[in-house]
């Protein structure tokens, strides 16, 4: 997904504007005219300047015939597009359900689903998903004592 530099520039300026707005109620150092707001404001001003140059560039690129937004070839292939969107979607799913359901079932289901989606054979996908889940759990939860969510398996583990 290539957006024209104008779009990027506008977004940068909007973001920097928000940043400066948020610094307005930061306190100053006692006896000085500046404080924690100084550095973010300098950065935001820099970004606004860059955004302006990007807009100028983008406009001339647009005049030269480049589109506002262009999608890569793979986005026209539904399977590839779905594969791409699946990755962040699965991470969001993990964020939402892992605490209740627990690491082991969620990780196993996610791996198995992805393996099968990417056309691995079930006889390979099942054992690999189980083994990978177990190794990651063993390493992080058992060895490194990371409190991976237990969820449904609280009573068993």
């Amino acid at each position, binding site marked *: *997904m*290539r*957006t024209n530099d104008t779009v*990027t520039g506008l977004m*940068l300026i909007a973001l920097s504007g928000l*940043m400066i707005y*948020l*610094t307005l109620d*930061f*306190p100053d*150092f006692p006896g*000085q*005219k*500046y*404080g*924690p707001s*100084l*550095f*973010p404001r300098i*950065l*935001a001003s*820099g*970004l606004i300047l*860059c955004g302006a*140059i*990007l807009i100028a560039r983008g406009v001339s690129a647009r005049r030269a015939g480049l589109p506002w937004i262009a999608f*890569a070839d*793979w986005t026209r292939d539904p399977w*590839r597009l779905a*594969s*791409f969107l*699946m*990755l*962040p979607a*699965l*991470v*969001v799913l*993990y*964020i939402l359900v*892992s*605490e209740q359901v627990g690491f082991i079932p969620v*990780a196993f289901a*996610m*791996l198995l689903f*992805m*393996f099968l989606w*990417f*056309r*691995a054979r079930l006889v390979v*996908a099942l054992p*690999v998903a189980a083994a*990978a889940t177990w190794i*990651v759990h063993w*390493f*992080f939860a058992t*060895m*490194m004592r*990371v*409190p*991976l969510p237990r969820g449904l398996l609280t009573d068993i583990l």
Partner: protein
Amino acid sequence: MWDAIGLAFGLVLDPYVLWVCLASAVFGIFVGAMPGLTATMATALLVPITFFMPPVPAIGAIVTATAMAIFAGDIPAAMLRIPGTPASAAYTDESYLMSRKGLLDLNLGANLVFSAVGGLFGVAILILAAPLLAEVALNFSSFEYFWLAALGLTCATFIAQADPLKGFVALLMGLAIATIGIDPAAGHPRFTFGSVEMLQGVSFIPAMIGLFAISELLRGVVTIDQSAEMLKQQVGNVFRGLGQVWRRYWRNFFRGSLIGTGIGALPGAGADIAAWISYAVSKRFSKEPEKFGTGHIEGIVEATSANNSAVAAAWIPALVFGIPGDSITAIVIGVLYMKNMNPGPAVFLQNPQLIYAVFIIFVLANLLMLPIGWAAIKLAKQILRTPRNMLLPMILLFCIVGSYAMTNSIYGIIIMLVMGLFGWIMEENGFPVGPVILGLVLGELFEQSFMTSMIKSDGSLLGFFSRPIAATLGVTTILLWVYMLTRNARSRREPA
């Protein structure tokens, strides 16, 4: 000093450390050899593991894995015409054409040996230069540190990038992200939107996993079912004929290593740029430039030495000033801070044994490269056949758990996801992600030295030039800016 060196040997020759280095070497070779997985990604994936280790094995793991990965990137270049890491891209075509001519053995042998020796060259310079620079740096105050950070960030955005403006935007974004959380001068919470977790700022490791690993995965999934054609040729004795190559091209080796070391030590430019430049230099000064591009070994010798020497040289500014030489050392600096081993000249005085341990591990890693690299070449066809449709999902799971482990909460995963998508969009639009991580790592030091200097000089900018070294660094930085701006303006006018 000798006590410290003795201590350092004791630290490194611990069986646990050696075991970690060996495992990281194998890991580095594998990640480097897999197209689409880079040395930076190897580091990003290692950090959550090293987080739980003492400093020496943690650093040892990163050093060994990156050195191996940069070499291993040469293997698929020769066999599939796909560079395993961007550092091998400069001579991928040359390598592949050489293999097509039936010189696969010689090519892989030269890549292996010159990578190892080039790496040792870079390490030698690191060992010689770092302590000397550290002595100079001991006299630095906040003014010098401010300018040093400014100079480092300037180099990172301008020298290394195809589009300096976009590099600069990336850097500012990184610095802006670093301002989230408690501010370092007054302790006031900034941009936290009332969230308790955001008070700690954007955790560096999940952000890095997102930028370097998740964005790679997003690019990887859309080509997951495409595979390149493997060379049919079998690997034989890779060391045959290397003596002759050395006798003919030893000058290329030294020049490549020297260029690689110089570029590696520059903030912001790493192994990939070292390889591109030394390959171009090799062609420019060759007696037979017409042979370049037909499967000629000369440029490969020079560039493969250069990229490995750059790996070690990037540690010079990182250890001495705490200013990263490339994205990998940016990650390393983050790790050092977490281990309370803040990089800077003081480490050389307070904990010299840790610095010597880094040196020893670097030598060890480059020596280890010969046997492990040889084994990897022999097993290359099996390694390159690893199914990506199984590998990518496992890396995703690992990224999720690794990010979670850093904050022990969902917050880490959210940072990873946001930064991953952000990194992907940036790269799609030609914004480099390296400067973001530099900004994120250096942000606090940069702001702190800036604010301290402002308070010291009572808000006067002249104070920034009041000390001789600070003034020199400041003027250098400003001259670089003026030079880049005028060059940019001129190049804009000419082609139009």
